[in-house]
């Protein structure tokens, strides 16, 4: 009997030990999986950091590249590229020799590989912004040609006013905004957390936003269509652009086209999309033709810009300095990319004048 009790006790203890071991193993397994999760997230974070570091490194290297840097009396000028050197460098990397009119004699890939150690896998280009690449006498971002075709001159006064939202609630974040009637006076505009401009903003009835001189036959600065409606009838806009162009598909009257409000485009994201709009229809116009005109080539509505006009539009001056996006025919799709933009000066050494440009650098890294 005594022996039996002892055996039972031993069995109980065995079961207890097994239970403890089992719980211990579960805890270890949970800990290990937790640890691996943390490690994998920190590895991917490290990868992003490395890629960003590489992008910054390339920006620094390009900014100080003696091949394109400009100088005055043998002294290097900061943040400045020599236009002639830049063109020569670009042509050299395209395989050209001294005479650019003669077809390239070398393999561009070999030339690019000479700079691989310095610049790695990247695309480096310079886009000249001023002098404006197209003839834009009123500096409104639209070329004169576009305005001739459309028969209208549009002037953006303050883009903030476009954020006005009649149903905006809250609005506790004040920001100074222009009073276009008196440019020396500043008004307060109130925003809510969604970035919508609220009605308490002291901008009611002012001619903020787009001053449209469309069909302004009597030259009083107000479009012909607007003169048909007295201003008080429309508290939102002194002259409502929706009224001027009733073909605008904007059912909720928030200044956003219905087209843009489909899908993920909600609130501030819409503006991101519009301001980030980079001419997908290739007609040489940026967000203006979508936002201001409410259309682009693929829309069903009539586009006043014909294909013949498109062919004649000026394109921005872009000089591609270096373009190596894959090794041994590997496509850049196998790599992750990081993009950076830095404003730079471009010096014309002949006339000793400076242009304003932006340096785009996209670096590529093989995905982990």
């Amino acid at each position, binding site marked *: 009997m005594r022996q039996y009790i002892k055996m039972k006790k031993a069995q109980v203890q065995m079961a207890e030990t097994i239970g403890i071991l089992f719980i211990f193993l579960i805890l270890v397994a949970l800990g290990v999986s937790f640890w691996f999760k*943390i490690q994998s*997230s*920190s590895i991917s*974070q490290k990868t*992003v*950091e490395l890629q*960003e*570091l590489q*992008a*910054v490194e390339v*920006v620094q290297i390009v900014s100080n590249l003696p091949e394109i840097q400009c100088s005055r009396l043998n002294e290097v000028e*900061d*943040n*400045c590229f020599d236009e002639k050197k830049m063109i020569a460098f670009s042509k050299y990397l395209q395989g050209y020799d001294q005479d650019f009119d003669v077809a390239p004699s070398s393999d561009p890939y070999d030339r690019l590989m000479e700079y691989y150690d310095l610049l790695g896998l990247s695309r480096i280009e310079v886009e000249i*912004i*001023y*002098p*404006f690449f197209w003839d*834009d*006498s*009123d*500096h409104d*971002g639209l070329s004169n040609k576009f305005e001739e075709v459309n028969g209208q001159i549009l002037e953006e006064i303050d*883009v*903030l006013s476009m954020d006005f939202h009649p149903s905006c609630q809250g609005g506790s*974040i004040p*920001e*100074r*905004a*222009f009073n276009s009637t008196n*440019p*020396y006076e*500043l008004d307060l505009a109130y*925003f809510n957390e969604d*970035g919508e401009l609220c009605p308490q903003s002291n901008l009611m009835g002012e001619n903020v936003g787009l001053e449209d001189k469309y069909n302004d036959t009597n030259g009083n600065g107000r479009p012909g269509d607007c003169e048909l409606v007295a201003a008080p009838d429309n508290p939102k806009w002194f002259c409502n652009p929706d009224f001027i162009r009733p073909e605008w598909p904007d059912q909720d009257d928030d200044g956003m086209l219905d087209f843009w409000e489909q899908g993920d485009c909600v609130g*501030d994201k819409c*503006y*991101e999309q519009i*301001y*980030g709009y*980079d001419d997908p229809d290739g007609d040489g116009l*940026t*967000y203006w033709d979508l936002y201001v005109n409410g259309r682009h080539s693929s829309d069903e509505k009539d586009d006043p810009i014909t294909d013949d006009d498109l062919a004649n539009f000026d394109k921005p001056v872009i000089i591609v300095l270096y373009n190596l996006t894959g090794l041994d025919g590997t496509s850049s799709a196998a790599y992750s990319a*990081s*993009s*950076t*933009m*830095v*404003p*730079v*000066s471009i010096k014309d050494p002949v006339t000793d*004048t*400076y*242009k*304003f*440009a*932006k340096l*785009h650098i996209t670096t590529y890294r093989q995905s982990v």
Partner: protein
Amino acid sequence: MRRGKLGQTEMIGLAVIVILLMVGLIFIVRFVVMKQPTSIKQTFTQSNIASNFLNSMLKMSADECTKNVDMSDLIANCAKPKGNPIQCTDLSSSCDFVNRTVKALLDNSIKRAEWGSRAYLLNMYVHDPNVPLHGIQHANKMHLCKERDSKIFPIPLNPGSVKVELWICS
């Protein structure tokens, strides 16, 4: 009686271990999992864009204006006209030209970048930042800004100076 006391002591030991484990877990979650990622590129570009923008803009030659002037000359002329006024091809004054051109430069560089629009505030003033020179002040979504960096370039006048200040937000 003794057995019960032993059980209580073991329970306390277990509770201490559980508390220690929880404290450890909280530390891990706080410092490893919830660690804010530091963006090298963001910090670099933020300060670099502001200084490079102002540097390039002030150096830029204004081809459309009568004399062989750059933007810093035009800004100085706008703040304190002396001698013959500078006039540009579209018959605008130096102030109008500066205002429009600065806006176009901002629109085409900082505002319209690959990653989307970046918040900024460009201000020109002589004494008080709240009184911009001829109303030359351009802002984009600064109300959404949390971290900002600014650069300021003074342009000498005689006497005083006009300050060109650019705030950039990540």
